[in-house]
């Protein structure tokens, strides 16, 4: 997939940044397609601080999921590296827990068994893991549904099962790729509250990938804005809204300012993306 023949970028010696738990360092990902080489992510660098909630935002197709897979260790970058507490990662790292964009619950497992899955594979005895899983199920607000199968739940509930399953593995860093993308706006706001509440109680370092500006501003301490094709770092915006936050923050004036500011950054990127997608469609017809 990623081209291994490309040499790494010459770059300055890494600076010691003790306050970062996760660092994305000059990451480049290229894909070889049938007729071209696509640069999905281009020289992305940013750090994540312990306990913070950081979002990565960008238009569709700008390389967010690719970046997600690189940080999760599922895709090896063409160049650059990702470090966890200063250690470069090779493959999935136990400190990182992933929540995928697509529906990812195991349909043959009950809610409780889905959530207990990471503990089960580590060999935690049934009694202990079920007790732990029950706590997590309560945390994601699914008490009473422990014995239900995913097919008996709504989309939002299933996504909460996926989040719970990842939380049960107690990752140092929670990584989520557009976990609310397939949900309606109201569910998305409420689920955002839930995630934020969990993040605050656990002091959980969280990296959320999203294409929704309101979601990014509602939830984050910082927002990383990506450009479209190639996916580069455009800007990092500090969100200085008071904590604890709920979805009510969306009605505040400051919130509006942040949204407008990020929209200003994204607007050009998004329209460029749209134009390119349309040109491509026209070209192939």
């Amino acid at each position, binding site marked *: 997939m990623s081209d291994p023949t490309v040499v790494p970028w010459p770059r300055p010696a890494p600076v010691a940044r003790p306050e970062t738990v996760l660092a994305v360092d000059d990451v480049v990902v290229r894909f070889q397609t049938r007729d071209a080489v696509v640069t999905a992510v281009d020289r992305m660098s940013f750090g994540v601080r312990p306990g913070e909630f950081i979002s990565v935002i960008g238009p569709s197709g700008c390389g967010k999921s690719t970046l997600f897979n690189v940080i999760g260790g599922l895709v090896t970058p063409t160049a650059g590296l990702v470090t966890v507490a200063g250690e470069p990662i090779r493959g999935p790292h136990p400190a990182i827990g992933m929540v995928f964009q697509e529906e990812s619950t195991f349909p043959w497992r009950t809610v409780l068994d889905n959530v207990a899955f990471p503990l089960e594979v580590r060999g935690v005895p049934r009694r202990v893991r079920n007790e732990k899983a029950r706590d997590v199920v309560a945390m994601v607000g699914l008490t009473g549904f422990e014995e239900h*199968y995913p097919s008996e739940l709504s989309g939002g509930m299933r996504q909460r099962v996926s989040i719970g399953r990842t939380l049960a593995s107690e990752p140092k860093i929670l990584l989520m790729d557009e976990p609310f993308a397939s949900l309606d706006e109201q569910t998305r706001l409420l689920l955002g509250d839930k995630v934020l509440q969990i993040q605050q109680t656990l002091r959980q370092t969280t990296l959320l990938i999203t294409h929704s500006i309101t979601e990014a501003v509602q939830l984050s301490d910082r927002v990383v804005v990506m450009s479209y094709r190639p996916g580069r770092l455009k800007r990092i915006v500090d969100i200085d809204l008071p904590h604890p936050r709920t979805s009510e923050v969306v009605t505040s004036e400051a919130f509006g300012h942040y949204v407008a500011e990020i929209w200003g950054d994204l607007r050009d990127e998004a329209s460029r993306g749209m134009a390119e997608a349309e040109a491509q469609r026209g070209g192939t017809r």
Partner: protein
Amino acid sequence: MSRTGVDRGPALTGAATLVGLFVLLELAIRVGLVDRYVVPPPSEVITSFGRIVTEENIPQRFAQTALEGLGAGVLITIVGVPLGVLLYRRMVLRAAVQSWVAALAAAPLVLAYPLFLVIFGRSAWTIVMMGFVSGVAPVILKTLEGLTATRRVLIDVGRSLKLTPMQQFRLVLLPAAVPTIFVGLRLGLIFALINVVGLEFLINFGGLGQLINELAERYDLPGTYAAIAFVVLVSVLFFAGLERTERWLRPGR
């Protein structure tokens, strides 16, 4: 939304349809629309049940056919599923043999029965092996298909949790493939049962197939049809068993 209450509507409708068809057939035969020497009246078939059960040793024949079917069913499972897994694991092997396994599924293998007679003699083993050979191909193909079709994201969940290859297989791939594997098992079992009964008929050996042969030669048509009903019963039992096993292995829809 009741999870325990069983809706008996479909079952009743099914039974009523069957009874209705029998009544229509009975009428058609009595009126002379259908020749009674081709299709005996259902009433005569029903009354001949008692006779063939007592006179033709049905319990023992039923057990023999069922056991042969079970033997073939177990063989297609313990051979077909691992072979499907092997093809999934080995790309080269898959490319090399997938098409001829598919051809095997379509071939009239029953014509090879003399070969089996030579190898296993005129015994239940010939019958079991014939059933196995004719039913194994769909199990291999559907196992391969089910594993290949496992959703990428489920595999990625396993990878992100650093499952061992064995855990990935046992906890993700296999459960994901179970419904498709069972489609293969159903198909395979149908082929196996047809061949088991067909071969009993052909080599005049043992169970219900041989009885059908005998009764047909005696022109005992009601008896023949009654014996066929027992063959249907065997396959109904097998299918009910498969369905239970599937629900046990793969709960949640």
